[in-house]
């Protein structure tokens, strides 16, 4: 029997909905939740804590005014659990209704800076929220982790293997900034990017589309692995927690170069152009990088999205794998996303992972964060 594959391959590993008989359903993002620590840390205060006189104006350089940082009682797991609970409550979903729960954080800290490699964090989150039936496993894909989780559950839902799953992450990652503050000497430091990090938990429910909601139309990802060594993070040798070493300019150059062609590919699969996209939610590294990247996208694609790319990095910092969901909720709660709006999540992460998830905001998703009238 002949096996049917798309006639024109795409560089992105891509799924389009609805598919053929092998994947007849459509997946939808029906709820989003987050947990933000109450403590604020300004860039001014973070730079003031550096051991060396760096002369860096971090806010001017990155556009980051402040980020949230965990209190001693919180960690990756508590952030993830709180975000999961918020997401389920907003979506009116009971935890035992979840068929799958995928945890996707980079940090898996519990009780301070002890990184738990086993059990999987998904198992602990499932236990604490009562997702007794859920298949649980963790995905690690740097800052693209949550969207990789959405990519996997999108596939399972499209095929009818499951009806509903939760993708969750808890990033207690600001400690890398504290460590970097001991080592950064000037603007050329490979640990400069660590100073942009902030803490957050985030979760989304992905489920089979109801009432004809268009849901996720295209999800596509690739890894440009020749750039895989441009950002590396390890447990610190002589300090608690971890340290991250980034060749930021090289990473940014590669991302800016490769993103337009891949975004165009995803749009082509969806049969739309960039001017039909209402909201682009990119990974949040720095306001300057986002604006520079989107300017290049508009230049290469010949047009831009209907609204400026969403920027939340100015007040949350880079919250790693949670940035897209944290930003989505800002847009929802600010009333800037209406039911039916076309949203493009754009993942850019160490690896170098680039991915696009195109979906239309459902009425339920919009209503769960405010009034739709």
């Amino acid at each position, binding site marked *: *029997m002949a*096996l*049917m*594959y*798309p006639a*024109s*391959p*795409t*560089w*992105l*590993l*891509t799924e389009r909905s609805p*598919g*053929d008989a*092998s*994947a007849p359903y459509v997946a939808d993002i029906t709820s989003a939740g987050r947990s933000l620590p109450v403590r604020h840390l300004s860039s001014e205060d973070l730079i003031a804590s550096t051991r060396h006189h760096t002369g860096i104006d971090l806010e001017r350089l990155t556009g980051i005014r402040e980020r949230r940082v965990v209190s001693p009682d919180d960690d990756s797991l508590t952030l993830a659990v709180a975000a999961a609970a918020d997401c389920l409550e907003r979506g009116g979903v009971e935890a035992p209704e979840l068929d799958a729960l995928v945890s996707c954080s*980079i*940090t898996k800290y519990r009780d301070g800076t002890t*990184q*738990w*490699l*086993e*059990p*999987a964090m*998904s*198992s*602990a989150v499932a*236990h604490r929220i009562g997702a*007794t039936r859920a*298949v*649980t*496993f963790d*995905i*690690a*894909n*740097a800052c*693209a982790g949550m969207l990789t989780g959405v990519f996997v559950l999108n*596939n399972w839902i*499209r*095929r009818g293997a499951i009806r509903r799953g939760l993708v969750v992450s808890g990033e207690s990652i600001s400690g890398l900034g504290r460590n970097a503050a001991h080592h950064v000497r000037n603007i050329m430091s490979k640990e400069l990017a660590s100073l942009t990090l902030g803490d957050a938990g985030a979760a989304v429910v992905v489920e089979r589309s109801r009432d004809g909601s268009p849901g996720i139309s295209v999800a596509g*990802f*690739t*890894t*440009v*692995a*020749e750039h*895989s*060594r441009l*950002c*590396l993070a*390890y*447990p610190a*040798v002589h*300090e*608690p927690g*971890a340290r991250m070493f980034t060749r930021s300019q090289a990473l940014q150059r590669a991302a800016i170069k490769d993103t337009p062609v*891949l975004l165009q*590919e995803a749009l082509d699969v969806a049969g739309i152009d960039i001017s039909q996209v209402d909201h682009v939610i990119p990974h949040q590294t720095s306001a300057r990088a986002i604006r520079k990247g989107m300017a290049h996208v508009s230049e290469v694609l010949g047009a831009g999205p209907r609204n400026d790319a969403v920027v939340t990095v100015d007040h949350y910092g880079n919250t790693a794998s949670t940035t897209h969901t944290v930003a989505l909720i800002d847009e929802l709660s600010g009333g800037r996303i209406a039911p039916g709006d076309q949203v493009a999540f754009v993942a850019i*992460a160490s690896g170098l*992972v680039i991915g696009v998830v195109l979906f239309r905001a459902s009425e339920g998703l919009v209503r769960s964060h405010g009034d739709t009238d």
Partner: protein
Amino acid sequence: MATRIDGLSLVTGGWRSRHSALRLSVDACRAALGRCELTPQDVGLLINAGLYRDGNLGEPALAPLIQDDIGANPEDPHPGTAGTFSFDVANGACGLLNALEIADGFLRSRTVQTVLLVASDASPSRRLAPEFPYLPGGAAAVCQWTADQVGIGPFKWHNAFDEGSTFRATVGFEGGRNVLHIVEEADFAERAAEAAVAAAVELLEDNHLAPEDIDLIVASPALPSFAKRVASELAKPEEAVVTDPGPWHTVGLFAALARVQRAGRLRSGTNALLLCAAAGVNAGAALYRA
């Protein structure tokens, strides 16, 4: 039609690779692709399920480094052809079964033609992991969709939550440095077997099968009391439950599968059950028809 597992390859650590999960993964991937007469450019999706790695690397996932080192479309995108996507799955000794289920999904939907699965574990160093209990090793296999009536699936999972009270692995700061500790309590094997049996029974019931319909159980972890309890609860002779003593960790499931292949016990038509249990306690089962 189902997902076939081909080119299964198992490598052990030599003096150059015993502290490098990356090298072990790369060696296993190259061997698996070679056995299938495939090139790295044929790989559309690469999933790594290994946990213990060089320097306890936290970011990026190990999979992109493996992808780069084997040369699976690592370059900037170019139109008209397909690239490679790679990421890690983490679920201890069950990670490869999770990866198989994910691979099966993308193959069933014809999203991808070739998936490369790999796992490896190696002590990052004596200093960073003074009591690392596993043999350095790597395993890889190629998954492709086939029109034949062979292959893997369906899958079933069972949770018996304990949040690590019977098995946990942590990297924490002590004595002036971050150290990896892996703690397996005495009752882990029993708890793991209970969860694995529950997953197996649910899988068999869902598919209207009985234990006597299963010829072989390919299992991980390779704890003697785990295998014995699984055999007893499923009313199978002990020799029907095959593990590979290693001691392996994330590699264990493929090591056991390689062992039954080497022994010629995975003949055409054999109905096998892939069965594993991980910290959590989380257990998974899948049917596999050779």
